[in-house]
């Protein structure tokens, strides 16, 4: 069961990372044109940014763990 959940998480996390990154690239470009609209400084943006950081770290840790596992299996 836990393996199944881990698999789902492993599948979903990279997609959330992509979605958040595309969002922030768009907001960053909009912010260059009109900083007064606070595209990057709003509370919601800051919460989303924190989400992105956490998810990116989790994805990276899982990727490193998987690489280690496959390396050990190869040995």
């Amino acid at each position: 069961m836990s393996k199944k959940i881990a698999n789902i998480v492993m599948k979903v996390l990279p997609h959330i990372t992509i979605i958040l990154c595309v969002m922030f690239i768009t907001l960053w470009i909009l912010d260059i044109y009109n900083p007064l609209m606070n595209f990057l400084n709003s509370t919601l943006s800051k919460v989303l940014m924190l989400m992105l950081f956490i998810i990116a770290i989790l994805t990276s840790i899982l990727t490193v763990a998987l690489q280690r596992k496959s390396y050990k299996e190869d040995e």
Partner: protein
Amino acid sequence: MEEKKKIKKPMAIWKLILTDILLAAVCIGIFLLYHYIIPMKSSNSGTVISQIDESNNFKLPSTEDSTSEEETVSEEETTKRSSKRGSGNTGNTGTSVISSDSGDSSGISNADKTTEVLENYSDSNITFDISKVELGSGNDKITYYVADIYVTNVKYLLTAFSNGTYGKNIREDIVDMANDNNAVLAVSGDFYGNSEDGVVIRNGVLYRSTLNDADICVLFTDGSLKTYSPDVFNADEVIAQGAWQAWTFGPAMLDGNGNVLSSFNTTSYLNKENPRCAIGYIAEGHYVLVVVDGRDDGYSKGATLTELAQIMADEGCKTAYNLDGGKSAAMVYKGEFVNQPVEGGRTLSDIIYIGGN
């Protein structure tokens, strides 16, 4: 054979990425909807920080003065304010900081300037006239409207929130807002409701004192109007001095002595030719509200901030501050539009108005 059938064929990578991008677009839509569209009332009812000093009254210009001025307008249609007040302003020659770098920094020519007085209003406490000014010709033409206002007290220079409510994304038509508040004259404000930060003081009530990157403009109860960059702004100091109104949009355009600033706190994108709205200060009790029309070739191309600064300097302003422009830029007199807002204008968060209850 059956087992093979059960194994799903994975989606192609480009399809996966495309799905993610589409999902991101949906998320951006939801973000913008939440952040800029859905109205949210605030529980913040503000703190009263200043009271009007009824004894601190300014003189209105005498009838004789205003008559002679009107005559001057009709006789010298082309040079009313620029010749009368605009001397000594050298124009913006090096606008560059966060950067107003449109390249047209040499100022605007008043050679083809025509002025037409559209309206006059006068009562015991308020006197103003509204003029239509046309600069240039053809596709370079700029058409703008100037309300030259005298009040006996700053309590007649008021602001109002849409639906009378402080909050986020709460919007109302400027004509409705003007009518709701019995405004004789109204112009668009700073669209405070689009932002979570930025100083908001309205009619002596402090709603917000957090700063963002924009310049701040403060009208004090003694009738003076000052602009501040966010790095020197001190809310406590300004409150102690008796702030009556404070707007956060900008940038500030003049140096306090009527000279165009050498650089503006803005981006090059925002410095492009656009419809504009600005408030200017000439003396205690004497203010100017300017609305520039734009995005309409042959009628008015709009103004860059550099051009707007020069217009404000030519109007005789010592201090001038840019307010929300684009489709927001609008001036309403007695319930009717004076200018021609782009595509009929848009609903706004707030107005600046004269008159009232």
